[in-house]
């Protein structure tokens, strides 16, 4: 056996271990897009909240629809960019076991948080919704990070910390929301691009 052969074998083993246990088709560009959408959305939300011709119930409905629309746009964006990256790198783009596990680990805290936020809104505890969204989104990212690029956990930490500060301070909900979902995503996306995608 040649030395280079043994080295190749070890590298192949390492690649296969990473490829089979992690979802590697997520892309940094989609994170930047999600961040930009979130900043636009937070601006629209601000306009809705400050519009005095709207009744409270109308504002709630407008904000909830905006949130649902934003979620759909973001999921579509991430899906399309992942598909593009998978095609580019000749990776199979399909719902395999690893992808399912990642999605479930991501979705569980997010669904719990989502239901909690709806309950808060229905009971008119508006002040806490933004921090709950940030905290549960951060937990979801942290939870899913072991099934994808592990640095996603730092985006998770950032959102959790912002969420906690938000719930302690109050009155700056939109600002914290835009920082967490907007600015953090953009910074993470750029970092990700330079670390994993530049070549």
């Amino acid at each position, binding site marked *: *056996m040649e*030395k280079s052969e*043994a*080295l190749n*074998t*070890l590298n*192949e*083993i390492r690649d*296969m*271990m990473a*490829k*089979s*246990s992690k979802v590697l088709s997520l892309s940094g560009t989609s994170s930047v897009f999600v961040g930009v959408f979130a900043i636009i959305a937070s601006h629209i939300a601000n306009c809705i909240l400050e519009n005095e011709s709207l009744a409270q119930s109308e504002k709630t409905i407008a904000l909830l629809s905006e949130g649902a629309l934003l979620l759909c746009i973001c999921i579509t964006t991430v899906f399309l960019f992942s598909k593009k990256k998978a095609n580019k790198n000749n990776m*199979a783009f*399909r719902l*395999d*076991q*690893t992808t399912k596990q990642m999605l479930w680990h991501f979705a569980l805290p997010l669904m719990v948080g989502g239901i909690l936020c709806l309950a808060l809104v229905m009971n008119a505890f508006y002040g806490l919704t933004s921090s709950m969204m940030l905290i549960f989104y951060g937990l979801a990212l942290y939870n899913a990070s072991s099934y994808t690029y592990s640095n996603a956990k730092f985006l998770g930490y950032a959102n959790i910390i912002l969420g906690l500060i938000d719930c302690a301070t109050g009155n700056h909900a939109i600002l914290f929301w835009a920082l967490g979902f907007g600015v953090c995503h953009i910074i993470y996306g750029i970092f990700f691009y330079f670390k994993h995608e530049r070549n």
Partner: protein
Amino acid sequence: MRDELKNINKAFESKVRLGIMSALMVNEELDFVSLKTLLELTDGNLASHTKSLEELGYIESHKQFVGRKPNTTFNITERGKAAFEEHLNALESFLKLSRG
């Protein structure tokens, strides 16, 4: 054969078997289709390699039905884990020795 090569496991000389073992080392279990896609193999090719690894007692398979479709999942056995680790160690020590 050189002494340091005696622990290099012949069963893992095929790239496909090495791939199967590596993937099963880091996953609790994997189904047939996932393994097939990961290793970019045909059904027949994967089946022959999983069969021989199973005969060696390195992996186990469980067959169940999802609706009407048969779905086979594989997992690594303790024996397989030990054999694979020994193989990795042998590769490593071979590299260390040939460095000097």
